[in-house]
C-alpha cells in the first residue's frame, strides 16, 4: 500500500510484517526510529507473539538475538556506527554459529571525531565478519530488502545486514509502497532452524574448534556466501513475482550500454549518480553506473560482466581505508583481474558531507579527460588541510586536530 512515511517507520512496519519473535533494542542515532517503531507495534498489539527487549548495550542486543536465534526464534535488531563496533565480537560470533539474524544498519560515520552523520565506515569495518551485507539504494528498496533478508538468512542459516544510509534514507519522508501482511506471509515461510536448543534432543553449540577443523568451518561460511550469489537473484525474482517490483539482486546497472566511463557505488548515492549519468549522457558522454546491492557476497562475476568494455571505472566510496584509499575499490579491482581497466577512487560524503551532482560531474569529467588522480577526495578543503599541517609544524604542542580545524572554520579565516 502506498504511504507517505519516514524511511525508518516504513522499515519498522515491514520488519513487523516479517513476524520477528524476538527484537532487541538499544538506541543509537540514526537507527533509533526503527526499533522505536517496532517497539510501538509490539506494545500496541499490532505485532503479536514478539518479545521486545530493551537491552543495556549493542553488545547485549546482538547477544540476546544470538540466544533467541539459537533457541529457534526469528530474531531481529538494528544498530549503527559505534553500536556496530561495540557489538563487533558478537557480529563474528553470530556468523560463526550460523544464526540467521537480520540486522538493520543505519549507516553512520565512526569517531573520533564523533559524528552522527552518514557514511559507510561502520558496516565496512565488519564487512568480512561472515554476514551477508545488502545495501539499499532507496527507502523502497530498504523495505523490500528486509523481507528478502529474512528469507535469505533463514534459507542459508547465515546472518544478514541490511545497510540503509543514515538520515538520507532513515529520516527521509517519501512515498513508499509498504507491503501488506498477506503479501509478506505469501513470500516469507515460517522459520525452520537447522539447529536449535531443545531438551528432547540435546547437543552442544559453540564448542572449541582447533586447527583440525577450523579451516573447514570457515570455508563452509565462505561457501554459504558463494551460494548466496545464486540465491540473492533467485529470491529477487520470486519477490518480483509476489510484489511486482524489481528490487534487490546483486547489482543494478544503469545506462551501461556502450559506456566508456563506468561509476560504481553502494547505497543511496546511486540516486545522485544516476542523475549525473543522465545529464552527462545528454551532453554526449558515454557514461553509465552500477549500484552494488550485494556487497557481501561480492558479485565478482556479475560486476566483471557489467564493466566489460569500459575504458575506465570510478568507484565512489563513502568510506576510507587510511593508508590505502578505497575499500570497495579493492574489491572492484578484484573483479577486473582479467580486464586491464584503470580504476579510480572518489572518496565522498564522509561524516555526512553532501555529495552534490556538481562535484560528482566535475570529478567524472576529469576522469573522462584522463586527469582524475587514483584516489580523489571530493570537495576536500585544501586550505584547511594546509593550515593545520603548517600550524602543527610550527609547534610541538599543537593540540587536538579536529577542534583546531573547527575553530579556524568558526573564526571565518
Amino acid at each position, binding site marked *: 500500500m502506498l504511504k507517505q512515511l519516514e524511511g525508518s517507520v516504513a522499515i519498522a512496519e515491514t520488519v513487523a510484517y516479517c513476524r520477528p519473535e524476538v527484537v532487541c533494542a538499544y538506541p543509537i542515532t540514526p537507527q533509533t526510529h526503527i526499533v522505536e517503531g517496532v517497539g510501538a507495534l509490539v506494545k500496541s498489539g499490532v505485532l503479536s507473539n*514478539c518479545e521486545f527487549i530493551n537491552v543495556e548495550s549493542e553488545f*547485549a542486543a546482538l547477544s540476546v538475538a544470538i540466544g533467541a536465534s539459537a533457541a529457534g526464534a526469528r530474531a531481529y535488531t538494528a544498530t549503527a556506527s559505534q553500536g556496530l563496533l561495540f557489538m563487533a565480537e558478537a557480529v563474528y560470533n553470530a556468523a560463526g554459529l550460523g544464526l540467521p539474524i537480520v540486522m538493520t544498519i543505519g549507516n553512520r560515520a565512526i569517531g573520533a571525531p564523533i559524528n552522527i552523520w552518514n557514511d559507510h565506515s561502520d558496516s565496512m569495518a565488519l564487512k568480512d565478519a561472515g554476514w551477508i551485507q545488502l545495501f539499499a539504494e532507496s527507502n523502497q528498496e530498504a523495505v523490500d530488502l528486509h523481507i528478502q533478508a529474512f528469507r535469505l538468512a533463514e534459507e542459508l542459516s547465515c546472518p544478514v545486514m541490511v545497510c540503509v544510509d543514515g538520515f538520507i534514507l532513515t529520516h527521509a519522508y517519501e512515498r513508499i509502497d509498504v507491503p501488506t501482511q498477506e503479501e509478506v506471509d505469501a513470500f516469507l515461510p515460517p522459520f525452520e532452524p537447522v539447529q536449535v536448543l531443545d531438551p528432547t534432543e540435546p547437543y552442544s553449540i559453540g564448542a572449541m574448534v582447533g586447527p583440525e577443523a577450523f579451516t573447514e568451518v570457515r570455508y563452509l561460511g565462505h561457501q554459504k556466501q558463494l551460494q548466496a550469489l545464486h540465491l540473492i537473484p533467485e529470491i529477487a525474482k520470486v519477490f518480483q513475482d509476489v510484489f511486482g517490483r524489481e528490487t534487490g539482486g546483486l547489482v543494478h546497472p544503469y545506462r551501461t550500454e556502450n559506456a566508456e566511463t563506468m561509476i560504481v557505488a553502494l547505497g543511496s548515492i546511486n540516486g545522485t549518480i544516476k542523475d549525473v549519468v543522465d545529464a552527462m549522457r545528454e551532453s554526449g558522454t558515454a557514461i553509465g553506473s552500477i549500484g552494488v546491492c550485494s556487497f557481501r557476497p561480492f558479485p565478482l562475476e556479475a560486476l566483471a560482466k557489467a564493466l566489460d568494455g569500459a575504458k575506465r571505472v570510478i568507484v565512489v566510496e563513502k568510506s576510507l581505508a587510511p593508508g590505502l584509499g578505497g575499500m570497495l575499490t579493492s574489491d572492484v579491482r578484484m573483479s577486473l583481474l582479467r580486464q586491464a581497466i584503470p580504476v579510480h577512487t572518489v572518496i565522498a560524503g564522509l561524516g555526512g558531507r553532501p555529495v552534490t551532482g556538481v562535484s560528482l560531474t566535475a570529478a567524472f569529467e576529469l576522469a573522462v579527460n584522463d586527469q582524475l588522480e587514483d584516489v580523489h577526495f571530493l570537495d576536500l578543503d585544501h586550505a584547511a588541510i594546509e593550515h593545520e599541517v603548517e600550524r602543527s609544524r610550527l609547534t610541538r604542542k599543537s593540540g587536538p586536530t579536529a577542534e583546531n580545524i573547527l575553530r579556524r572554520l568558526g573564526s571565518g579565516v
Partner: protein
Amino acid sequence: MSDTSATQRVKFYQTGTHTVGNRLLDEADRTVQASMERANAITSGHRACQGCGEALGARYALDSAMRATEGKLVAVNATGCLEVFTTPYPETSWQIPWLHSLFGNAPAVAAGVAAAFRVKGREDVRVVAQGGDGGTADIGFGCLSGMFERNDDVLYICYDNEAYMNTGVQRSSATPPAARTATTPAVGDAPGNVFGTGKNLPLIAMAHNIPYVATASVANLHDLEAKVEKAMGMRGARYIHVMVPCPLGWGSASDATINLARMAVESGLFPLFEAEHGAVTKTNKIRHQIPVADYLRPQLRFAHLFKKDRENTESLQRIQRMADANIKRFDLLEDGGSAQ
C-alpha cells in the same frame, strides 16, 4: 528447615571433623549424586584438573537444576575453564542443550534463549547461565546487570575461583588482597594483589532487588543443591555465587579443595547466605570461627605471607579484619559460638 541452613533440620558431623556425612542423612535428604536417579548434566571424561572445584560445583548445581526442572533445562556458558574442559569436541560432557557464545555475554544470550522459549509458549523449559569470576565480575558485568535489571527469567551461577585460571591465573576483580597471581606477583613492598575495596557480586546482585541471591560452597553440597533447587522454583533473575577452589591457581593440593572451601566459610571470609528481593533471609552459621591464617597457609598464592621468621602480620591482620567484618555484617556466629 532450620533458620541457619537451606537444607538440614539436624546437622550430622563425622567425628573429629565438620564433614556432613551423606550416609547419616535420610534417603530423601541425601545428595543427588548418591542416587541412581541422578540427573547427570555433566558426565565424566571432561578435562578438568584433578581437584577442580568448578567441575564439582557445576556438576552439583546443574544436576540439581535438572532435577528441579525434570530435565527441561538449557545451559548457556561464558568462555572459561568450564566451557573449555567440558567440550573437547568431538566429545562433550553436556547431557543438556548447551550454548557457548562469548566471554562477556552469557547473561544476555541466556536472556535471549529464555525470551525465545517464552514466545514459543515453552516456559516449562528453563535457562541457566554460568561463568567464572572473570566472566561474571569483570567482562560480563554489564550484561549481568542488564539481565538483573530486566528481571529476565534466568538463573546465573558464578563459579568463583578468584582469578582468570583458564588463561593462566591472572588477577580478576574477585581476587582477594595479597593473593599472588601472574599479574600480581609476590614481589616488592606490597606483594600480591592490592588491598582494594573489593567487588562483592552477591551484594551487587542484591542491590538489583532480584527475587533470589545466594552464596554457596563446594564444601557444603547439600546446601548448594538446595539453593539451586529453590532458585529453580522461582521465576525472574536469580543469582548464585559458588566458591570453587582451584588447585592450579591457588597452589593447593588437589585433595585440599573441599577443606579449603570449608575453611573459607568457617573463617568468615566467604559467608554463606540467601537473600530475596534485596534482603538477607538466611545465613549459614559458624560454630567456631577459625583464624584466616589457617585457611591461607596451605595455599601457595599466599606463601609470601608466611615466610620463615618473617610472617607478614600486617597483611594477615588486615585479612582477619575482613573476615571479622563479615561475621558482624552477616551475623554469622552461632549462639554460643566462638570468634577469633
